[in-house]
């Protein structure tokens, strides 16, 4: 049984267009997704593909006007507000995107310590600070005094504690020194070996592949492919979706071919396959209907032509 299971999750919000006409905009559509204990799943995709919303949906901290359908379960139980209240900040931890997620008027050390923390956690955090080479003075600093890299390390150390069973890390590495990236990824790996599940959200495929077991590729609010990390090799022959292949080939060490076009801002604007407009193997039938997810070679893909 997977630790976290996301079932047909859709996230949408209501917007006013042209004055008083309401429109529902779906940003994440019918997402299926699971992660096991001890597993590291990377979620990659361009910005605006709904990755952060997924993280916030799992944590139950989406804005009030956002509607969700589908279900999320944790350890076999429906992850509702009651269960979240029990686990948030303890078993389930979030590593947020930027320093703006820290209270600007509170010293770092005071801020990291919450009511849920005992001596054990404080000790753990201290040793994490040492590992990241954050001096003791950092705890006495205010968030605005932290450099970009320091802030990332502080944010990682909020979550990477022993009691955590599920870490959702939302873009934890950009701005960090490469050594620190290795250190942070190492810490995630270590936690995973201890049975913790790590959901690693990033747009950096390379960083993801360093530690991930599986990679989920997001495109315009849809998970279009779920592949094993080993599938990312060579010219991407073992990858299933044209977008994933294109992403892989766009990396400098591969062919360095840019992908033309942009992803649609709203999935509701498009009838058929979301990637159709930019796809090299586009055919007439792609336009008719959104492709269902199907199994291909042990992975999941949403493409009619994938083999």
């Amino acid at each position, binding site marked *: 049984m997977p630790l976290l299971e996301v079932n047909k999750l859709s996230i949408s919000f209501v917007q006013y267009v042209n004055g008083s006409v309401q429109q529902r905009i779906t940003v994440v559509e019918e997402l299926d997704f699971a992660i096991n204990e001890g597993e590291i799943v990377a979620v990659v995709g361009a910005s605006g593909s709904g990755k952060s919303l997924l993280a916030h949906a799992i944590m139950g901290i989406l804005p009030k006007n956002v509607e969700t359908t589908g279900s999320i379960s944790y350890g076999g139980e429906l992850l509702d507000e009651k269960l979240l209240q029990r686990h948030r*900040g303890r078993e389930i*931890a979030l590593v947020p995107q930027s320093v703006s997620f820290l*209270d600007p008027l509170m010293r770092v050390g005071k801020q990291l310590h*919450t009511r849920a923390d005992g001596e054990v956690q404080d000790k753990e955090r201290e040793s994490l600070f040492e590992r990241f080479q954050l001096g003791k003075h950092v705890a006495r600093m205010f968030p*605005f005094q932290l450099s970009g890299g320091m802030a990332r390390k502080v944010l990682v150390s909020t979550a990477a504690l022993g009691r955590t069973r599920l870490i959702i890390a939302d873009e934890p590495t950009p701005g960090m020194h490469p050594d620190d990236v290795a250190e942070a990824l190492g810490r995630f790996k270590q936690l995973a070996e201890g049975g913790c599940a790590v959901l690693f959200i990033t747009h950096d495929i390379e960083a993801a592949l360093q530690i991930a077991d599986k990679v989920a590729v997001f495109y315009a609010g849809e998970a279009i492919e779920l592949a094993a990390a080993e599938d990312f090799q060579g010219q991407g022959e073992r990858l299933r979706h044209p977008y994933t292949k294109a992403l892989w080939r766009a990396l400098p060490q591969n062919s360095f071919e840019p992908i033309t076009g942009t992803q649609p801002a709203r999935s509701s604007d498009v009838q058929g396959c979301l990637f159709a407009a930019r796809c090299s193997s586009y055919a007439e039938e792609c336009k008719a209907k959104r492709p269902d997810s199907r199994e291909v070679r042990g992975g999941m893909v949403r493409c009619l032509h994938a083999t």
Partner: protein
Amino acid sequence: MLNGIMVFAGKKLIRLAALLASVSIITFALVAMSPIDPVQSYIGADVMRVGAEQRQEIAAYWGLDRPFLERFMKWAAALLQGDMGTSMIYREPVTHVIAERFMHSALLMAFAWLLSGAIGFIAGVAAALRKDSWLDRLIKSYCYTLASTPSFWIGLLLMMVFAVWLGWLPVGMGVPAGVLAENVTWADRLRHMVMPVLTLSVVGIAPIALHTRQKLIDVMDSDFILFAKARGERGIGLLLRHGLRNIALPAITLQFASFGELFGGAVLAEQVFSYPGLGQATVEAGLRGDVPLLMGLVLCSTLFVFTGNALADYFYRMVDPRLRYRKEERA
């Protein structure tokens, strides 16, 4: 830290001196340009009994026959020695009149300031936490309505209800009529202050409540509140730990920066309730053409507003870590 305060105070004092000089020049120029004949307003109702010669004597006594620049220099020189001239209405040095009345007004304004600040802040927090509920709508419409209401009219309504209709409170004045000054008790003074204070507070609540409400809504929508929630904080704990911490400072600053409105409100409230404070003196001076007193009051109220703004500024720079530490790093 102490050093910082000294530098801050020094800079502010220089600014204050420049400001008071500017205000003096502009006020003096305005009054000098006025078509009003100060001798005429001094004589007032006695106009039939005063001859041309006496008029000239009066003018000479006040130095009104001298050219503008000379008068200004003389007045400014006296001002620098702490002499603001003699009030024409009260026949007393202006400094005395202002000092005595300031005590009355200061008490009135202090009560109203604290009351409106506390109630406004709480109302703002309550409205923000229950955003879009009936409570929020009630508080919002109260504030918007009060912002469009003449404060002296509020005073009239209060007087009608509490003094005339219910008879709980005295109609006006600072002390009971017909009682010797030494027999007036503090309880009497307080009873006479209730309605002016209420009038001032009722109006003063609106800006602070609306500001606090918006600020708290913004804060509660911010990323760091999201993250705090993601780490298991919620309810009152979350509000106290992260919410209030981030809205208290702007609220205090706003409250200090509102000294000008407070003074204006006091002028009206004191007039309604015949309360013997600075505001009433300002009106009297304006109505009866008491130029020295009016000029003194303009300077005094400027000083008052400046003090409020300086305190607001001080709180921001010295309490907000973002400004405090950035400055130290630069130094």
